[in-house]
């Protein structure tokens, strides 16, 4: 209870609330711009939070996160272009509804569904994370190593178009993590005599290069689309805020089901908002009495998609807080930001830094309220955001990336690293490698290595990985996920692979 009060006291200060408000606005604006993903927005927020208190910084990033899931709705509903991969299913019904002359209603339904989705997922998070952490502190290095193997294989097989390239991407990430001194004895590895590499590749520079630079560059692949502007839905927009709230609440089954789907998918490593919205939409369609209306502007479709994707925010925090294992790229960034402040993330987080964890729960709820308030009062303004042309966004965000990279360590050499990693990231993206497994590999690599070596230092017997029951379960699960991925790969063999690029958030 003391922890809860301390956490609350840190969140409810004027400065924190003001920063969080700015974060909500930034998240909504960023995600409303087609091509600007939630992940990118959070990556860019990170350097700004270094000077803040740990909880304050994480609260701001959560606001960007929650806001971002809503912002994707704006371009999805009005332009029919998902602003982020997590709002793909939103376009199915919100766009037709907007086209049928009810753009305000479509947006309001989405905003309310997002709000309730986030709140429901936070409630689940509050009840699920502490018991998971209590269970996790009893795990030894064997279980931990097996858990990470499982997390990486499932990420690799779920994300992107090809399990094979997903696994390779994860391995590249792990390989990147081995550059620099080794985590146990401090022996130098793979620095090739270059001074810059001796301390290892800074995770955040890798993150900015891999996600932001490669995404920005891929936005200009099509020269015609860069030079043309998008037309916005015109005409009067009536938001009918309160009527719509009742309308959304009148669909409790759909709302709850979609949120729970979002939480579960969010808690699964690798799967996130980009999958949850489609699954929730599909389930809502199956469960609906008028399923034939889906795709023509059915409110249930919007509710399902938006509640589903927003609920992954809370779901993704469950393994992060409970186990210290980030489930998605965004959670990896949140974890990195805590590590920058010297807080080690693991199952002991909730025991050692209870105020921080409770503060995060409170921040989630506050962030969703802020998102709601900001959306209701300034939706009209955000409509203009979707008009920002790509030729302006790409150079400006690149400059922000450069500032962010430099501000991390005040090192010019990091900038050279940024361009190298950016080019590598774009090459991988163009070749259809999913980037999320790579990033998770980079952050999980040292944890996996430490646990593996610690396990063998404690007891030289390597069979313990297979004889300790929990460890065995994780390894079997990892094996099953690979077999499953290979099977679906063989099934799709006849149908040719599409050359589309994998979504990255």
């Amino acid at each position, binding site marked *: 209870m003391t922890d809860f009060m301390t956490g609350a006291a840190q969140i409810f200060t004027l400065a924190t609330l003001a920063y969080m408000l700015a974060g909500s606005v930034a998240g909504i604006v960023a995600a409303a711009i087609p091509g600007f993903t939630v992940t990118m927005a959070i990556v860019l927020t990170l350097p700004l939070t270094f000077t803040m208190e740990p909880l304050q910084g994480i609260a701001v990033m959560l606001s960007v996160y929650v806001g971002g899931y809503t912002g994707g709705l704006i371009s999805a509903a009005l332009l029919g272009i998902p602003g982020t991969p997590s709002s793909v299913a939103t376009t199915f019904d919100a766009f037709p509804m907007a086209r049928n002359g009810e753009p305000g209603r479509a947006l309001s339904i989405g905003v309310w569904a997002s709000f309730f989705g986030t709140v429901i997922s936070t409630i689940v998070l509050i009840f699920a994370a502490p018991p998971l952490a209590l269970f996790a502190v009893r795990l030894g290095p064997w279980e931990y190593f097996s858990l990470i193997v499982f997390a990486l294989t499932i990420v690799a097989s779920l994300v992107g178009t090809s399990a094979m390239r997903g696994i390779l991407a994860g391995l590249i990430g792990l390989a990147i993590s081995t550059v620099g001194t080794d985590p146990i004895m401090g022996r130098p590895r793979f620095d090739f005599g270059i001074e810059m590499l001796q301390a290892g590749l800074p995770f955040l520079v890798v993150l900015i290069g891999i996600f932001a630079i490669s995404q920005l560059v891929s936005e200009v692949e099509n020269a015609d689309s860069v030079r043309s502007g998008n037309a916005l839905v015109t005409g009067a927009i009536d938001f009918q805020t309160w009527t719509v709230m009742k309308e959304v609440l009148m669909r409790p089954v759909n709302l709850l089901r979609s949120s729970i789907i979002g939480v579960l998918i969010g808690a699964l490593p690798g799967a996130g908002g980009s999958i949850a919205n489609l699954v929730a939409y599909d389930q809502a369609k199956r469960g609906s009495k008028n399923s034939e209306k889906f795709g023509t502007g059915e409110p249930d479709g919007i509710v399902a998609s938006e509640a589903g994707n927003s609920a992954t925010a809370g779901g993704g925090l469950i393994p992060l807080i409970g186990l210290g294992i980030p489930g998605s790229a965004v959670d990896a960034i949140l974890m990195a930001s805590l590590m920058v402040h010297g807080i080690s993330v693991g199952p002991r987080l909730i025991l050692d830094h209870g105020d921080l964890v409770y503060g995060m729960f409170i921040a989630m709820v506050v962030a969703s309220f802020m998102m709601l308030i900001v959306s209701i009062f300034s939706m009209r303004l955000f409509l203009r955001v979707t008009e920002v042309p790509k030729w302006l966004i790409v150079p400006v965000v690149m400059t922000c990336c450069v500032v962010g990279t430099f501000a991390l360590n005040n090192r*010019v050499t990091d900038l050279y690293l940024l361009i190298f990693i950016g080019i590598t990231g774009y090459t991988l993206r163009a070749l259809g490698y999913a980037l999320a497994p790579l990033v998770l590999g980079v952050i999980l690599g040292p944890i996996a290595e430490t646990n593996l070596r610690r396990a063998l230092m404690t007891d030289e017997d390597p069979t313990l990985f297979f004889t300790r029951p929990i460890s065995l379960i994780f390894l079997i699960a990892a094996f099953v996920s690979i077999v499953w991925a290979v099977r679906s790969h063989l099934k799709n063999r006849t149908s040719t692979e599409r050359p589309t690029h994998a979504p990255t958030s």
Partner: protein
Amino acid sequence: MNGHDPMKSQEAGLVARLLSYVFLLLASVGLFISASGIATSRFEKLGAGAFPKIIFATMAIVSAIAIIDALRQIPRRAYGDFAAQAVAWAKRCYLVFVCLGALTAYLLTIPLLGFSIASLIFLFVLQVILMPRTPKSIALAAVVAVVFSFGLNWLFAEVFTVFLPRGVL
């Protein structure tokens, strides 16, 4: 679709991926050998080189499987078309190279010109290259360039006390 054959460019994509697998295989074998040279202390069963060796061995196996898989998928004619398709792709995506080139030049000139001036030039030039050029959009680009170069520098120095590179000039 700009007059290009989607089928052929898809096949060229498969060849490009095959090349990436080959690269990964060679790199992982090379790094595996280099990891074998890392000394192990006698106090531990697994030395500093063991974990990298596991990773590179797995990577070599997976990329070898990927190579075999890709070789079976790619029709023979695709190899002959590859060079032409790659050039066609590069032409279609020329703006990608322009952006990466501009970014590289920008990052290399920051230590020389300082953050503000280098950013001003980078922002203005890249916007002008990418935009449909009208007097209005050029004026907007100029304003944006000033705000996100000198403005950002001021914000970081005054608010966050992070001093961006000043340059030697």
